[in-house]
């Protein structure tokens, strides 16, 4: 009897835990944020974008030179 009661209790508790997980369980990259590794990603993207922007600016400048010659 005791065993059955205990197992019922366990069953009840396990469903309780699984429900608890469902309510908060939308997975987000919180670990990446808390460990600060997200900044590595940001740094990479920003560097790539700044590089492309500088590239565009140099094209702009070269074009200006050619326009002046024409």
């Amino acid at each position: 009897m005791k065993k059955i009661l205990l197992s019922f209790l366990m069953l009840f508790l396990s469903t309780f835990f699984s429900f608890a997980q469902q309510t908060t369980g939308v997975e987000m990259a919180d670990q990446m944020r808390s460990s600060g590794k997200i900044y590595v990603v940001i740094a990479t993207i920003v560097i790539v974008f700044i590089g492309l922007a500088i590239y565009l600016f140099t094209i702009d400048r070269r074009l200006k030179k050619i326009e002046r010659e024409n």
Partner: protein
Amino acid sequence: MKFIYQSWWKVLAVVTIIYTLVAGLTFHVPTLPILHETIRNLYFHVPMWMAMLVIFSISVWYSIKYLRTGQEAYDLIAVECVNTGVVFFIFGLVTGMIWAKYTWGEYWSNDPKQNSAAIAFLLYCAYLVLRNSIDEEQRRAKISAVYNIFAFPIMIVLIFILPRLTDSLHPGNGGNPAFGKYDLDSRMRVVLYPAFIAWPLIAVWIATLRYRIRLIENKRNTL
């Protein structure tokens, strides 16, 4: 048209995009099932379409201006705008496909939004092919201007209206709520709206660079 030689708006666009890169990855987003962190794609996928829309609108504007005045420069602006717009079209399609893979399960699930976007893409490819198939300059300019004016509303209908009328997985279509419903707290807007302004500016910048090159080439060819 003096502003295309100025750089303040180019710097503004670059700084704004750097802000959206940083803020887009760090600021708060709603926690939603299926989407998880990919909701941040909103800051980078949707502005591509915004840039495409703005640059195609400019193209139509100058096509109309060309038909009214017959000035060759307007035709050149229209072409280079389409050339740049097509690039952003590809960016939008590819980023959408990647996002779809991780939320809808397939890169291409023949969703109405995807299919009609692909048709609209072919529509603009046809514009570029049409241009290259006509040798005489004035005829080319006139025909492609007329085509461009007709292609634009068809593109709008294909991408933004028809998918709304059927069942689509894409947010904002076929009864699905758009993301406007999720970011009611406005915390996503502080990133999304600057991106909506900055990416079109980048597209305009690239288009003006191409237009200026085209002007020089044109001058050389006529000499």
